[in-house]
């Protein structure tokens, strides 16, 4: 699509730098030197979440412990984008290893929301959302979601964000948070760009054996669909803490969809309540994360010390890790270590995995009768940075209620802007069954017809 085409590269780079000065969404800006290939994404700019490996460019996943890590390889998604001629412009800021909802857990800068610089950009792919909102030029912004980290910043920044089904896009090159939960996706201004970007990065990858061999449909063939049935989980709309402005925008969205001929009904999905979906998600996420982060111990890469100064290896490891990890990372590593300890493992890790089965069953049941599930993307507008910093962990985790359920179940979802509240954007969340990316894109496309 011509909309992503950059006509003046110098100007674009200038813009990127200026906006970044204001909002700090970039971890590192890359000034492209090599000539790109030609392809579907010729003259299209792309930026990538810090945790996604970019060859010889710093990949620190928002953490001090990987501050200087320069991978010797490109993530598959980066490789694919480059093969289609897209131009790499740098890495976006994120919460450390994905641990966060507001991008306030970044070891580097805390990005500011372009709509209101006192407010957060969301997380953990906060920078990825802010950059799209800040620039005039359309770009492809690659983000990653474990519990909601694409559609959250999409909603807070008033842009589009699509999280594909687990296994649709290769995780090869993604610094892992939760290996059974991580999904790489796209943020952009326009739905056409999101569709195009997703098509390019999707597909089976022998380097990530959890990717599926299913064919990738042509997402860019966007169609209006009105013969659809949408379900609203009661538990989402009755969520404690759902702001009035957000709810109003959602209700407006529902009316809009109905006006187009789409049937919208409320359904009962008890396992999606905060009581169940949030703990089920966090137990598995933290458990997996605690093992993924074990490798950061000061040998071969990352923060390191002089090994000769240590009496024993445990001392060495502990010092590197204590210095390199932020507070939230430490908290999650420790809890995740506890939940898989012999004696607690059945109660937490195995139990959460069983609840996950039930949550998936609940989704599947609803999808037998409905095409999509809708809700607000986030329960609030982007909070003020100072407020966010004051919240305690459990308050923050509860903020993820609307997104952790579908993320845990590996369902694809998209957030599209659906209005403003107190001057800040809100988002409409559209969730589909496994591998129904086309359906949710089409639904979003349909929603947007007649806008502007």
């Amino acid at each position, binding site marked *: 699509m011509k909309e992503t085409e950059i006509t003046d590269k110098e100007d674009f780079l200038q813009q990127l730098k200026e906006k970044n000065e204001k909002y700090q969404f970039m971890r590192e800006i890359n000034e492209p030197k090599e000539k790109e290939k030609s392809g579907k994404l010729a003259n299209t700019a792309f930026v990538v979440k810090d945790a996604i490996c970019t060859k010889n460019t710093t990949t620190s996943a928002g953490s001090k412990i990987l501050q200087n*890590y*320069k991978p*010797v390889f490109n993530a598959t998604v980066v490789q694919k984008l480059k093969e289609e001629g897209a131009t790499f412009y740098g890495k976006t800021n994120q919460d450390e290893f994905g641990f966060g909802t507001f991008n306030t857990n970044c070891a580097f800068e805390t990005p500011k929301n372009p709509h209101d610089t006192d407010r957060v950009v969301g997380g953990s792919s906060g920078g990825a959302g802010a950059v799209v909102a800040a620039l005039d030029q359309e770009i492809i912004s690659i983000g990653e979601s474990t519990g909601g980290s694409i559609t959250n910043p999409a909603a807070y920044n008033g842009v589009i964000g699509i999280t594909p*089904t*687990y*296994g649709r896009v290769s995780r090869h090159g993604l610094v892992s948070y939760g290996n*059974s*939960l991580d999904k790489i996706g796209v943020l952009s201004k326009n739905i056409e760009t999101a569709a195009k970007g997703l098509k390019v990065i999707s597909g089976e990858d022998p380097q990530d*054996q959890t990717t*599926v061999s299913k064919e990738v449909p042509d997402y860019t063939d966007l169609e209006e669909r009105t013969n659809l049935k949408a379900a609203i989980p009661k538990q989402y709309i009755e969520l404690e803490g759902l702001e009035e402005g957000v709810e109003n925008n959602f209700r407006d969205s529902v009316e809009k969809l109905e006006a187009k001929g789409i049937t919208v009904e409320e359904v009962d999905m008890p*396992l999606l309540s905060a*009581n*169940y979906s949030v*703990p*089920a998600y*966090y*137990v598995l996420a933290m458990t997996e994360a*605690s093992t993924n982060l*074990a490798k950061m*111990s000061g*040998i*071969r*890469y990352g923060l*390191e010390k*002089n090994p000769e100064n*240590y*009496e*024993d*290896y445990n001392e*060495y*490891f*502990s010092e590197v890790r*204590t210095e390199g*990890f932020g507070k939230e990372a430490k*908290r999650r*590593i*420790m*809890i995740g*270590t*506890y*939940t898989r*300890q012999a004696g607690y493992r059945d*109660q*937490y890790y*195995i*139990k959460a*995995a*069983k*609840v*996950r*089965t*039930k949550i*998936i069953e609940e989704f599947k049941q609803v999808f037998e009768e409905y095409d999509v599930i809708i809700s607000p993307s986030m329960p609030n507008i982007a909070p003020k940075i100072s407020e966010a910093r004051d919240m*305690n*962990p*459990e308050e923050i*985790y509860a903020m993820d209620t609307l997104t952790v359920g579908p993320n*845990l179940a*590996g369902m694809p979802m998209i957030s599209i802007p659906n209005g403003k509240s107190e001057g800040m954007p809100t988002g409409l969340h559209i969730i589909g069954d*496994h591998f129904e990316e086309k359906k949710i894109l089409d639904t979003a496309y349909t929603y947007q017809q007649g806008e502007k």
Partner: protein
Amino acid sequence: MIEKEEVKKVAENARINVTDEEAENLKEDFKSILQMFETLEDIDTEDTEPSFHPIDVESKTREDKPKETLKKEEVFQNTSNEEENNFKGPKVK
């Protein structure tokens, strides 16, 4: 109810140093977070199999065929703790 000593043990297992004060604070974190996790017990999972992936992953393996390995510069580009092509690490008592 988790005790401070247990928190310290978990921290040690995870190779993270905590001061006494930090352990005290973490104890509180543990308490409230584990409490949040407890609601999972309300759900009957008697006849439920655990899901370690959210989709039915396909059985995948790779052919036993060698590929190119890294060059020396690549192997050591992320560290300065190198000696005669080895990585320098802390000693094992």
